[in-house]
């Protein structure tokens, strides 16, 4: 793959004078076994190698530092007694302890992300199929680029759009849902007159995670062995049957990991939630009522600027919880992708 394996001459004489390039360097029997292994590097080459390796290691250090510094700054909140916390942190007035404060936030975060996922995954799979198997080949990359444009829009713009355009637009739809399907617990309660509820947030988050799910699924769908597809078509399958029999089973794990990547992104999204959602601190499944849920990320952004020292510590502790959740989600997504890579060696 890389050049280190091939050039034995360069290994024995790195940076040697150009005249030695044409003729083979004299065989030195002592160096024999060594040449077969790692080439010897001197001077600048060695410095460069170690600089590059150091940069690679730095990535690991940074990731570790993120965890360490968050833990360090969260320590005061983690070790303080509940009473002390409730007294000193203004926004914890209604909670009895740190866990009691974090709980509803974690719930809200997961609820918003799952809503987004439920809305986004079917659409994303369909778009990926459209680009990979339905659209004319010449158009396909252009269409992919158009979907990627959705990812280029900054989240604050989505927040602005969601709060000022989408929320008033979908409010009538939500009232209709509330009045006709109100017997389903999810749509119960008083429908918010502003439309700034978690379902609207879910829609906006779904739009935001659509590009990443689409991009990964598309890649996987395109990798379906052509022979399978052609075999299915040759047996008389329609295009949809071909997709159902070959493309979808082949791409299942890829789609799962794409969905988890999307989930990871939705969990950490701040601005759209902060600007759209009317917040509350309840374990509530009411999707259409105002003042029910809040997410960790949006809560941090809302409280951080005015927080006291201990308040910041509490918020960093909630951020640590978010970090751990997204880390677990992302690592499992990547693990699925990596495992898949081993299997699809045939391509």
């Amino acid at each position, binding site marked *: *793959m890389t*050049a280190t394996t091939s050039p034995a001459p360069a290994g024995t004489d790195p940076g040697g004078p150009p005249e030695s390039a044409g003729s083979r360097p004299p065989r030195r029997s002592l160096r024999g076994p060594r040449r077969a292994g790692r080439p010897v590097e001197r001077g*600048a080459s060695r410095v460069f190698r170690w600089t590059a390796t150091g940069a*690679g290691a730095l990535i690991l250090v940074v990731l570790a530092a993120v965890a360490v510094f*968050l833990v360090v700054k969260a320590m005061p909140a983690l070790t303080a007694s509940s009473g002390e916390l409730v007294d000193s942190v203004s926004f914890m007035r209604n909670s009895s302890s740190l866990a009691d404060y974090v709980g509803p936030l974690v719930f809200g975060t997961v609820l918003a992300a799952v809503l987004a996922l439920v809305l986004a995954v079917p659409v994303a799979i369909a*778009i990926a199929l459209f680009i990979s198997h339905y659209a004319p080949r010449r158009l396909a990359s252009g269409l992919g680029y158009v979907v990627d444009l959705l990812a280029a829009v*900054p989240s604050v713009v989505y927040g602005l759009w969601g709060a000022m355009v989408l929320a008033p637009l979908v409010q009538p739809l939500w009232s209709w849902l509330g009045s006709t399907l109100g017997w389903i617990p999810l749509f119960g309660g008083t429908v918010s007159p502003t439309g700034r509820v978690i379902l609207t947030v879910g829609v906006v988050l779904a739009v935001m995670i659509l590009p990443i799910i689409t991009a990964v699924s598309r890649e996987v769908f395109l990798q379906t062995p052509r022979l399978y597809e052609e075999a299915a078509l040759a047996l008389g399958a329609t295009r*949809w049957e071909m997709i159902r029999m070959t493309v979808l089973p082949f791409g299942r794990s890829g789609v799962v990991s794409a969905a988890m990547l999307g989930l990871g992104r939705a969990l950490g999204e701040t601005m759209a939630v902060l600007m759209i959602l009317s917040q509350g601190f309840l374990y509530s499944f009411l999707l259409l009522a105002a003042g029910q849920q809040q997410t960790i990320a949006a809560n941090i952004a809302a409280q951080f600027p005015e927080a006291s020292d201990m308040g910041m510590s509490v918020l960093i502790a909630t951020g640590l919880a978010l970090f751990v959740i997204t880390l677990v989600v992302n690592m499992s997504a990547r693990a699925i992708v990596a495992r898949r890579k081993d299997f699809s060696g045939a391509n």
Partner: protein
Amino acid sequence: MAATPRPTAVSPTSPSSSAVIDPAKDLATLLRQVDPRRRRTDRVMRGVITGAFALAMLPLLSVAWTVVSHGVERFDLYFLSHSMRGVYGGIDAGGIYHAIVGTVEITLFATLISVPIGLLTAIYLVEYGRGPLARAVTFFVDVMTGIPSIVAGLFAYALFAVILGPGIRMGVVGSVALSVLMIPVVVRSSEEMLRLVPNELREAALALGVPRWLVVIKVVLRTAVAGIVTGVMIAVARVIGETAPLLITVGVADSINFNLFEGRMMTLPVYVYRQFQQGLIPCSADDASCIATITYDRAWAAALTLILLVMLLNLVARLVTRFFAPKTIS
């Protein structure tokens, strides 16, 4: 393909009777026929899938339309060249100059941190990396891509709070937060570009006796430079719209601040949020100079500026690839 709407000339006729007329043609027609239920499913799914694509275009078009149509009202030279210093209430004034200064400085500094680290890591992964360290780096770069931006902000804050004491707000903290988000993107894209460089080039250079580090710099990087620049610009475009980490590390300001290392700064995304958050201005009925929706107008105009900036970066990145890519990589 299989469901091509064939005029059903030989509908459910018995194969034996028509076989007498023209066996080959008839068999072909028969084979091409799909029973109606299956054909209907195929049609429906085609409609659903095409419809899903159209559905996804709606928000994109809606966002683009609203941002442009609301944004152009206040988007002018005055808006771009004035700060918010001394602007209060609903007066018809105020701009984003201070926010542009902040965004450009903070993003540039973040790029300055991220590009060397990201590029060297990519070089490590492509040119030297093997064994457990390389595998760990690859895996954790992927994991790092998924760090929520607000957590990156908290990290930068915590880092500087431990070193310099709590309550610190300055531009460079925001740059550090952004570079945490930017490094993995730079690594990924540069790595891809470096892998595209044909091995023959490296081997030829090494065979000529060029030392390894010069091969990397003069041959590999030279060949991949267009792709790397593109990747960096796309990474910049991605972090330039980040709001949450800047909100908690850099804070907000109304005046121009050129100093990254002291005091709060304004940035474009935070400006949009700030204006939105201030909401409608309560105007007295007889005050003609007071505009109730001024904050929203400013937010839309700043959002337009931000989107134009992102699109410009993306466009230039594409042009760089198109015009500067070496001919071997097509």
